[in-house]
């Protein structure tokens, strides 16, 4: 039997567990290398179940990038599901990487992407099963360097104990340099500590052990500073400014089992021009950088050919804002039509153009239309700077109903700053008006299903770092529940209430998400204790033990209220203040003030708001200049680039 045929798990285990395909590797386009011929072994981890982790684009990009380097072999690992987790503990089976099926402990790096707060205990599960000490400072020279990345690293403090290193920002830019530093340290016999000290000087790298937090008596931060010479006090996010001439996976790994995002993903741009005040991604990934449309067309065809996928989707925070969208969609419609490939189009604003496109790619009778007004009244939509008016929603809905759609999904948040009962009733009233629009627009004889179906969903608002609401008070659990009841009651009082179905999220998890999102280093102990009490998969409702978290927070002498239910003062040192994501604190303060004045801000294309991201010198911030260039002829657009 060839070496790569050997599986880490026995047949007995594989026959007993759910979906053994999660653990056997061998997927199309997964990369096998000769381990003796590479000098760095990197294991990339998404700390959730395979179907979720494999749907993540970022890992596919970095996997392709690492494996394009001859001296590096990058493999993957995901959280073992509960059934296997139990067996691995009982039988002391070390966590392994999918490609080589070898223990993670043997690797040089374990890179963990941290996409949401509710995966924090799964990070400890990964470390524990791999046989790596949970606390970074307790790791020996034989342990992999544990490095974190992803959106939650913009407030890495609750996880500071567990990581050797955080990479703040986009992975394309500094990994080569970091690995070279690592190789150099290893070749010259330097210790783990010495490597980390050098790594801390690489742009974008945060080595938490070289920093110290001092607290005030009231629990707020008194100071935060490096403890070693040469370690930067402030860390600026890394950003890939040229998003066209860069790494992108032309051969994404194709799983055997059906995963959440089971399609080719074409990332058309990064960042968002909109500036919704509740949205963290909209601030973190500034400025907007568009990919060249010709390159995207080429990539789409190549990825479809190399994967055999029957569906392609566009990825971005707001696809409608991509300037070459009509051209790209026309191209895909033609190519995909010929090849029997489905196109899925998320995050499109509903207008005549998008409805026309959607009617071509989906069955209008079966599909539903999605609006995300986020707040029920125009007043509150101004507070959150969601530039969607009731008029636009109703005219979009009317167009859609004329086009044959009968199902509408609406997404709102409850608990936004300044929210009143009127705003909540606005959710019910808007839902009702959309139903009324259907009956006004579609004559009786043309109502295919006879009726319209409005599904109104609310989630609870959790303030996030680096947003204008980072200072805001989060609602308590009871307030959340009261708001959901009020919404339900208001909907039941509407004329068209029979056409409206109302869903709301659980409040418990939103409370914890709020604690972790704006938490500090002291929460590390809470996370560790909760894990040791048996919690994993907190993101999965059925696995989440709310009381255990709340009790443990108290046990550790901390309080939920401190992290969530108080409004922070503008001069408080926030745990994430040492990170520079481009957007300045001054800008966020201005936006917070404007929110309270119910004033909207123009988007990046309409008028620069001076957020600070212009310092990266590209994307939408320099677009005006390139537009001047384009007027002379489209080929000039890229002439200024070298």
């Amino acid at each position: 039997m060839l070496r790569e045929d050997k599986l880490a798990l026995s047949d007995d285990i594989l026959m007993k567990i759910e979906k053994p395909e999660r653990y056997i590797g061998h997927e199309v386009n997964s990369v096998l290398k000769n381990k003796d011929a590479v000098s760095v072994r990197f294991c990339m981890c998404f700390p959730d179940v395979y179907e979720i982790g494999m749907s993540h684009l970022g890992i596919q990009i970095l996997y392709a990038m690492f494996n394009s380097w001859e001296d590096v072999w990058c493999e993957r690992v995901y959280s073992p599901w509960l059934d296997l987790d139990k067996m691995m503990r009982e039988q002391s089976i070390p966590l392994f990487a999918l490609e080589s099926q070898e223990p993670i402990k043997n690797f040089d790096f374990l890179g963990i992407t941290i996409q949401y707060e509710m995966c924090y205990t799964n990070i400890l599960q990964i470390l524990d099963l791999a046989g790596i000490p949970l606390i970074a400072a307790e790791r020996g020279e034989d342990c992999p360097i544990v490095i974190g990345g992803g959106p939650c690293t913009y407030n890495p403090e609750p996880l500071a104990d567990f990581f050797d290193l955080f990479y703040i920002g986009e992975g394309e830019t500094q990994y080569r340099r970091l690995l070279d530093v690592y190789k150099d340290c290893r070749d010259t016999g330097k210790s783990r500590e010495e490597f980390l000290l050098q790594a801390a000087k690489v742009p974008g790298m945060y080595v938490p052990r070289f920093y110290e937090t001092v607290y005030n008596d009231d629990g707020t931060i008194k100071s935060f500073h490096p403890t070693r010479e040469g370690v930067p006090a402030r860390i600026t996010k890394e950003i890939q400014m040229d998003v066209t001439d860069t790494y992108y996976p032309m051969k994404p790994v194709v799983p055997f089992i059906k995963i959440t995002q089971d399609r080719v993903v074409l990332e058309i741009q990064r960042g968002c021009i909109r500036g919704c005040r509740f949205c963290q991604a909209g601030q973190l990934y500034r400025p907007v950088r568009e990919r060249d449309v010709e390159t995207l067309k080429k990539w789409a065809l190549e990825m479809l050919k190399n994967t055999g996928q029957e569906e392609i989707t566009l990825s971005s925070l707001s696809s409608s804002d991509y300037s070459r969208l009509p051209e790209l969609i026309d191209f895909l419609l033609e190519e995909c039509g010929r090849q029997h490939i489905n196109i899925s189009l998320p995050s499109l604003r509903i207008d005549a153009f998008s409805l026309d496109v959607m009617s071509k790619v989906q069955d209008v009778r079966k599909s539903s239309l999605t609006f995300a007004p986020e707040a029920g009244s125009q007043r509150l939509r101004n507070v959150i700077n969601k530039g969607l008016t009731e008029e636009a929603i109703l005219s979009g809905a009317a167009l859609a109903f004329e086009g044959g759609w009968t199902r509408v999904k609406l997404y709102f948040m409850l608990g936004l700053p300044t929210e009143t009962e009127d705003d909540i009733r606005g959710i019910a009233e808007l839902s009702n008006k959309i139903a009324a629009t259907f009956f006004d627009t579609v004559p009786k004889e043309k109502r295919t299903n006879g009726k319209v179906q409005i599904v109104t969903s609310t989630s609870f608002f959790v303030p996030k770092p680096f947003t204008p609401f980072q200072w805001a008070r989060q609602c308590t659990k009871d307030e959340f529940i009261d708001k959901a009841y009020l919404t339900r009651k208001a909907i039941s009082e509407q004329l068209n209430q029979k056409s409206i179905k109302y869903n709301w999220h659980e409040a418990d998890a939103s409370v914890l998400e709020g604690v972790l999102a704006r938490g500090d280093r002291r929460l590390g102990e809470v996370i560790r204790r909760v894990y040791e009490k048996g919690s994993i998969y907190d993101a999965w409702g059925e696995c989440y033990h709310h009381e255990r978290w709340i009790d443990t927070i108290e046990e550790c002498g901390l309080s939920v209220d401190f992290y969530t239910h108080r409004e922070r003062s503008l001069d408080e040192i926030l745990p994430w203040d040492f990170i520079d994501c481009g957007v300045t604190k001054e800008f966020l303060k201005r936006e917070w003030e404007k929110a309270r004045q119910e004033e909207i801000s123009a988007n990046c294309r309409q008028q620069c708001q001076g957020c600070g991201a212009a310092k990266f010198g590209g994307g939408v911030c320099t677009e005006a200049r390139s537009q001047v260039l384009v007027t002379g002829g489209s080929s000039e657009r890229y002439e200024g680039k070298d």
Partner: protein
Amino acid sequence: MNGMKVRIKFRKYGPVRFIGHLDVMRFFQKAIRRAGLDIAYTGGFSPHQIMTFAAPLGVGLESNGEYMDIELHSLDSCQDAVERLNAASVKGIEIVSAKVLPDNTANAMASVAAASYTVRFREGRAPEADIARLLPEFLARETIFYTKETKKGTRELDLKAGIYEMSWDGRAFSLLLDASSAGNIKPGQVIEALLEQGGEKLQDNALLITREDVYTRRELTGDGGAPGDRRSENSREDFISLGEIGTLEIHL
């Protein structure tokens, strides 16, 4: 345009034996695209490739004879299809042959009548019993009842009529079993019943099973054989491998 039916024979072995039947189907849908085969699609908003599999293979089993019928609009040669599919496949899913089927051939799934298996015991999980002594008596029985566990409880099943051939060479069983949709029986059930006769229980996950081939009834192919014998005998001559049907020649 009328397409041609092409029957693909493939093997499944090694780690990919843990891939379930539905996922093997999904795998081939994508492999066919990667291979650039000119496959026919159904209409509608979500067109599907025209594709039928013979008999689902259980998770964990290996096979030397799996079949899938597809409809192609065009084809350079059968060998070309095999090479392209193999280039688009993964280790452990190996395409053995492609053959063009006569237009009137029953589809792979509907025509399945029997399947042959090789069954071994895993190391350390062989029974105490002397199988060579147990087997003649087992095969001579009038009825072989087996209690099958279903979602709703248990069900008594007589395996006897479905065991067409069974032999033991001291290391492995060779089995030919009913695999039709009405009477399908599994090799594990047969071995379990055999050991039970000797008063022994089959150990957990004790068997290594390889499906060797899948068969249809010779009479269904128009290749009559000897009528009259087949109903009573159900011997290997009454069946023809799905892989023997069709030709390597392309006729459009």
